[in-house]
């Protein structure tokens, strides 16, 4: 076979690497800002755009999709070309991938603070951006698949398997979870309601962790650790078993995010069982990474990039041990809604994703700039700042979680809650929140040291835009022997097979879904559960837009201390009209599912204007502007129509008269506020709509006066 000469595209690698560093810095800064807001709520400045409920999704999206996302592309574009001995298939697609992704990130950075959100965690972006994500992701996948087709190396190294699984699964997850009905530009309602929406969301949410934060990074681990250590992976056979076992198990683990909620028990158990099994492939992979360095620990001592990778893989091992443990119901009862979950994801995020990215950058930047790292000493400084940062971040949160959980469920000998006021359990852990912010600051300073170090490296280097390489072309694996079955040629073409499989998946998925959406009788109902009034619907959209679900759950679990504190535990039938579901996943503030009727309207009014008026020491941001911001009642009809399409039984023609009900309900609330001495209230405001919604919450099946005296 003739030796061919070709060039690797380093330009695209450089661009993605720079984007990774930039967005990493931004994402971490926003994270630090959010962390500080929890201790000093006045930092939000009393304006809508910087409240915690909007900043927290900005942080999660920035670090997951901007920082880690660009990190994935950096590593894939670098390693794929070299593993396959070919240039990327299309420079044009590479560029579209790059600029498209950055544009999506900018769109997210603008729309999230403006309050455009679907409320679904890590899928907050509204429908036009969802479509853009799908297109850019397919561009990436197409470019990768065609590069695989054009390869000069027949064997697909294990890293590539991880990349393929990432592409296929993320595409499916994103599309299924993003089914939403637009009612205007930048506003839509989830196709699914209540329990179903929760299930789809956490099927997506968990697999976003699995196939966006884990599998691509495992691919990077299998490439960059052997490269950096200059020795083969400990066991190639184990890596193959690791891959197949991991992807077959991961996709079933989602329901562990919904333990003790209204999800049917058998689905919860399914999630638990698969989550427990996941420890085997996860630890197999971790050991494979660590054992690669056996006999090379002297190198780890000298090479900071290897240190980063060792800690990264160790963090992967820790969080994949913790994950299955947290999927056990009795442990989940503690971790769910407390800071344990936050600590857990940051072991993974800061340790595994962050440190592997840093290690990769320290190795890759000098390589493509054909120079040495500017300062090993600074890299070591970064390493220790980062490691201490992780420790200072995680330990206080573990402490906070156990403290708060213990306080929540403590009963006095007379059978009363010892801490009936939720706020007491929050102020107790504020010192821990401050320490956590210190951890974040340390980690961020480390990243800044890295950026300086890499900048000096780049300055001293000489960038190689197109790197020459030589390899023999691929011989056809199969010589044509005349007539054969139609399927045979397909079997020789992995990529085509994969594409066709995907099409089959999508067709199958659509066939499954359409009847589901069309058959109304599929929705189980409790007779007393009624659709929201139009004003409540507007209020619900305010709740979504402000991201209240980032701090407040709407799911009372069937524990004595929860039913004592909040009221009757939540039933699945109560959520059938909730598009989207708003169960939340963390209680920085109390659960709100039974808040309806618990306080007078004036309490809510004062609480929104200034939370500390009603709850001294509260860390909730002020929402005073809500009393002035008008709601757009011209959208009422569109909202009613959309909900009806989704199966909510509003009468035909109701959308034409709905605004009459809006005005009437607004007046009722204004009157009740007047009675309590709050005069000059504008009726057509977000404040009134939100009060309407909050007063409705959980009242459909509430027994009369059950919680009124409390």
């Amino acid at each position, binding site marked *: 076979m003739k030796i061919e000469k070709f060039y690797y595209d380093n330009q695209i690698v450089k661009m993605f690497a720079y984007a990774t560093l930039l967005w990493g810095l931004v994402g971490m800064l926003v994270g630090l800002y959010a962390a500080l807001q929890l201790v000093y709520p006045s930092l939000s400045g009393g304006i809508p755009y910087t409240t915690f409920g909007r900043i927290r999704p900005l942080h999660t999206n920035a670090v997951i999709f901007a920082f880690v996302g660009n990190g994935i592309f950096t590593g894939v574009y670098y390693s794929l070309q070299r593993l396959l001995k070919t240039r990327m298939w299309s420079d044009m697609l590479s560029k579209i991938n790059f600029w498209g992704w950055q544009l999506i990130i900018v769109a997210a950075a603008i729309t999230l603070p403006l309050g455009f959100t679907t409320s679904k965690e890590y899928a907050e972006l509204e429908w036009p951006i969802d479509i853009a994500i799908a297109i850019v992701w397919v561009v990436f996948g197409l470019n990768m698949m065609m590069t695989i087709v054009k390869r000069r190396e027949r064997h697909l190294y294990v890293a590539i398997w991880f990349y393929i699984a990432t592409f296929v699964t993320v595409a499916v997850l994103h599309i299924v979870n993003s089914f939403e009905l637009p009612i205007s530009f930048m506003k839509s309602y989830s196709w699914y309601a209540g329990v179903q929406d929760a299930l789809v969301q956490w099927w997506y949410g968990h697999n976003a962790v699995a196939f966006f934060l884990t599998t691509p990074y495992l691919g990077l681990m299998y490439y960059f650790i052997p490269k950096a250590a200059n020795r083969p992976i400990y066991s190639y056979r184990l890596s193959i078993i690791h891959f197949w076992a991991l992807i077959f198990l991961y996709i079933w683990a989602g329901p562990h995010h919904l333990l003790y909620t209204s999800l049917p028990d058998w689905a919860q158990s399914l999630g638990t069982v698969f989550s427990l099994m996941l420890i085997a492939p996860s630890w197999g992979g971790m050991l494979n990474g660590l054992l690669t360095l056996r006999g090379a620990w002297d190198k780890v001592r000298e090479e900071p990039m290897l240190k980063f990778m060792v800690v990264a893989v160790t963090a992967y091992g820790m969080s994949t041990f913790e994950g299955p443990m947290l999927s056990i119901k009795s442990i989940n009862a503690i971790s769910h809604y407390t800071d344990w979950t936050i600590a857990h994801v940051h072991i993974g995020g800061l340790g595994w994703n962050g440190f592997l990215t840093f290690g990769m950058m320290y190795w890759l930047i000098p390589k493509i700039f054909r120079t040495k790292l500017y300062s090993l000493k600074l890299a070591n400084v970064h390493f220790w700042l980062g490691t201490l940062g992780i420790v200072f971040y995680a330990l206080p949160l573990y402490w906070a979680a156990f403290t708060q959980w213990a306080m929540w469920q403590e009963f006095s000998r007379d059978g009363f809650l010892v801490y009936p006021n939720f706020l007491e359990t929050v102020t107790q852990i504020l010192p821990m929140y401050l320490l956590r912010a210190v951890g974040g600051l340390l980690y961020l300073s480390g990243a800044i040291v890295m950026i300086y170090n890499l900048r000096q490296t780049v300055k001293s280097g000489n960038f190689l835009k197109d790197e020459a390489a030589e*390899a023999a072309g691929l011989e056809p694996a199969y010589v044509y022997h005349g007539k054969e079955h139609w399927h045979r040629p397909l079997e020789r073409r992995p990529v085509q097979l994969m594409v066709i499989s995907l099409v089959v998946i999508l067709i199958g998925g659509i066939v499954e879904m359409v009847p589901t959406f069309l058959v109304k009788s599929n929705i189980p109902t409790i007779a007393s559960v009624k659709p929201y009034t139009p004003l409540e619907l507007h209020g619900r959209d305010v709740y979504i837009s402000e991201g209240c679900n980032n701090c407040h759950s709407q799911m009372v679990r069937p524990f004595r201390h929860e039913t004592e504190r909040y009221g009757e535990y939540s039933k699945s039938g109560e959520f059938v009209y909730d598009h989207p579901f708003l169960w939340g996943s963390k209680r920085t503030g109390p659960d709100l599912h039974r808040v309806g009727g618990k306080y007078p309207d004036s309490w809510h009014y004062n609480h929104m204007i200034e939370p500390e008026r009603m709850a001294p020491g509260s860390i909730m941001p002020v929402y005073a502007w809500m009393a002035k911001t008008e709601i757009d009642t011209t959208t009422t009809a569109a909202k009613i129509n959309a909900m009806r399409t989704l199966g909510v039984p509003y009468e035909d023609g109701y959308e034409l008269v709905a605004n009459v009900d809006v005005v009437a309900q607004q007046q009722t609330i204004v009157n009740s506020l007047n009675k309590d001495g709050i005069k000059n209230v504008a009726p057509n405001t977000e404040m009134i709509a939100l009060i309407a919604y909050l007063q409705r919450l959980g009242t459909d099946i509430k027994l009369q006066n059950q919680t009124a005296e409390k």
Partner: protein
Amino acid sequence: MEALFLLIAISLVVALAFLAGFLWAVKSKQFDDDYTPSVRMLFDDETKNEPGK
């Protein structure tokens, strides 16, 4: 709980697609040699770039 069955169906289809990928890989002898690939990836032959590139 039709969403559950929907998700199980989709998850199964994804799993089947991976199974197809796995069977293809085994059949096309991707995994017959489980040592050489781990070493081969370490070698990126140094090729001189022509001037100007």
